[in-house]
């Protein structure tokens, strides 16, 4: 186990390095991405551009530039080319919104995904199952930003059935009630896709498990249906859901809810990333990529550990 953990930790560092380096190469190699020219503007002289290059260290070889940028990120000194604001500080400002969105939506989609999947599986073939299957399919077929726009149009204040705030984020420290009130719609909009998806996965794993020999044995021994379902069937069927949840949750924490954050103007890390990308602002893009990849590799690792703990057969030797 120890060797496994150490090997995975080294792998994580390597992945972080590779991902950041590739991101860097992409943006250095892109024509028109030359930051000096972009900062200097259209009327700049060659001398202006040369000065900016010197100031930002852009005349160094690319690997030196990469090293400098990484060093600045870890020393929290990196500033944006566009706004001159500290990049790490900007990400930290976005964290509360992104975490609020991810945690709330995660609880909702996990809860409803399990409920919907279980109901669908134990009533397989009946009307409720058909209905859930259809709704789940529609759920996974909707673009999340479109659902957000339509939701805002129908349910936000000053609109046909409006009773929710239109958009924006209120810090929990300022007013917990307003915080939840503003986040209800983003939570559900983000959760819809995952509810449909998890419901479908759980339905099929429960149906697989329910036909296993050990379930039949447990029934033969006279166990109650509820106990059978919770202790024997669900417990085993939830393993794939645990994996999925770990990875999806990490992606959303890492700013993967770019579309939801943008539609609802939540000012989170995802929206910061989207804004920086439209201006091709390299420092924030680098920092957000590293931040997001960090969550992905860490949660990948945690899922593997949890998996090994849940299922001894896959425990690494």
């Amino acid at each position, binding site marked *: 186990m120890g060797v496994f953990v150490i090997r995975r930790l080294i792998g994580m560092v390597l992945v972080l390095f590779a991902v950041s380096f590739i991101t860097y190469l992409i943006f250095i190699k892109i024509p028109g991405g030359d930051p000096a020219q972009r900062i200097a503007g259209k009327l700049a002289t060659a001398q202006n551009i040369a000065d900016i290059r010197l100031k930002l260290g852009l005349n160094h070889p690319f690997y030196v530039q990469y090293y400098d940028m990484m060093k600045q990120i870890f020393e929290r000194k990196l500033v944006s080319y566009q706004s001159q604001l500290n990049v790490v500080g900007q990400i930290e400002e976005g964290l509360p919104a992104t975490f609020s969105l991810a945690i709330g939506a995660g609880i909702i989609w996990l809860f409803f995904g399990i409920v919907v999947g279980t109901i669908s599986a134990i009533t397989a073939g009946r009307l409720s199952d058909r209905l859930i299957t259809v709704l789940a399919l529609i759920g996974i077929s*909707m*673009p999340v930003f*479109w659902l957000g726009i339509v939701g805002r149009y129908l349910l936000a204040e000053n609109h046909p059935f409006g009773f929710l705030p239109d958009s924006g984020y209120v810090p929990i420290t300022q007013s917990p009630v307003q915080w939840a009130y503003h986040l209800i719609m983003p939570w559900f909009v983000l959760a819809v896709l995952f509810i449909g998806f998890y419901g479908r996965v759980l339905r099929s794993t429960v149906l697989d498990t329910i036909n296993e020999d050990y379930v039949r044995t447990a029934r033969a021994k006279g166990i109650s249906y509820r106990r059978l379902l919770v202790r024997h069937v669900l417990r085993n069927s939830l393993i794939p859901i645990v994996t999925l949840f770990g990875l999806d949750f990490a992606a959303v924490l890492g700013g993967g809810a*770019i579309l939801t954050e943008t539609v609802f103007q939540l000012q989170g890390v995802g929206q910061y990333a989207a804004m920086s*990308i439209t201006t091709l602002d390299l420092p924030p893009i680098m920092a957000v*990529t590293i931040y*997001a990849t960090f969550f*992905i590799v860490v949660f990948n690792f945690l899922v593997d550990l949890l998996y090994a703990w849940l299922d001894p057969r896959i425990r690494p030797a």
Partner: protein
Amino acid sequence: MTTDTGTELGSDSFADLAAEAHGDIAGRSPWVLAWRRLRRNWVALAFLGLFAVICACCALAPVYAHHVAHTGPNDNHVGESLVVHGKTIPIISQGGIKFVNGKTVFTPGGIPIGPQLWRAGGRFVLGADGNGRDVAVRLLYGGINSLKVGIGSALICTFIAVILSLLAGYYGGAVDFVISRFFDLIWAFPVLLLAIALGTALSINGFHHFGITIPSGSLWIPTLVISYVLIPYVGRPLRGQLLSLREKEFIAASVSQGAGPLRVMFAELLPNVASTVLVFFTLIIANDILTEAGLSFLGAGVQPPNPSWGTLIADGQDRIATAPWLAITPGIAIVLTVLALNVFGDGLRDALDPRAKVRIEH
């Protein structure tokens, strides 16, 4: 307890097949058997039909634009007006102040004309946008671009993933190590972030490296970006399947008869994963259309004035309060298309291999 194997799966027992063949048990290929199962799943076939209808409608966009709507996808009609039931209505409403019974009534202007259905003889069936362009025409032309990007990137993505996983599965060892690390690396990238970053960066000046030139507004940019970021979603499960297949006896038999690497890969291994690949392909198109919409929504996909369903939603977003049809209609088009592909993909999976666990993860 009722189980999953309802009408469409369990009914093709050997007895049924034998009875149909009048007592002669004829050998049938797995594809024929799969088609028999699929044929009975009318829901899946109906949704395949829906997808075909959507594709056909989009393909006929120029015909519709020319003969029915009498306008192009990028033709502005600001300042013009439309005759509906003998009344003349401006395409973009003019606001103004009226005095009615001594009160001032202010009407805001600049609101495009709403869906006319067939009232104006085929013009502005789904209304106009802020520039006085025909939404129905733009929707169909946008569909062409969305479907091109979706199907094109699914083709490229599946092709590359199949080749890489065949190489990894056949050679194993060091080749497998390199290819699976490549999959891991893309897997670890924040996918949407990477796609948006690549899409935005490339759409500024295009791509001019390695002797390849792609101009900046090209549809190839979103197509290639989307296919690249989704490679591991197909490649990883395929590789796993192929690694277990290569240990099977029929591979050893084939090798012992002198089959070379290409023959083993394409004549022995590939047919055994073909059904998985086919199902993946269908579901990947659905996923790609959604990804394209997301990229275009953020301005990193199809570039204006080229319409696509994602850009149409983005354009309509700001006018949702006064002209909701702008954002709602392209969204419905996406939902119908993706739903059709998902339902058909599910049916195809059940027909080809009821036990297969092919799923697209988001």
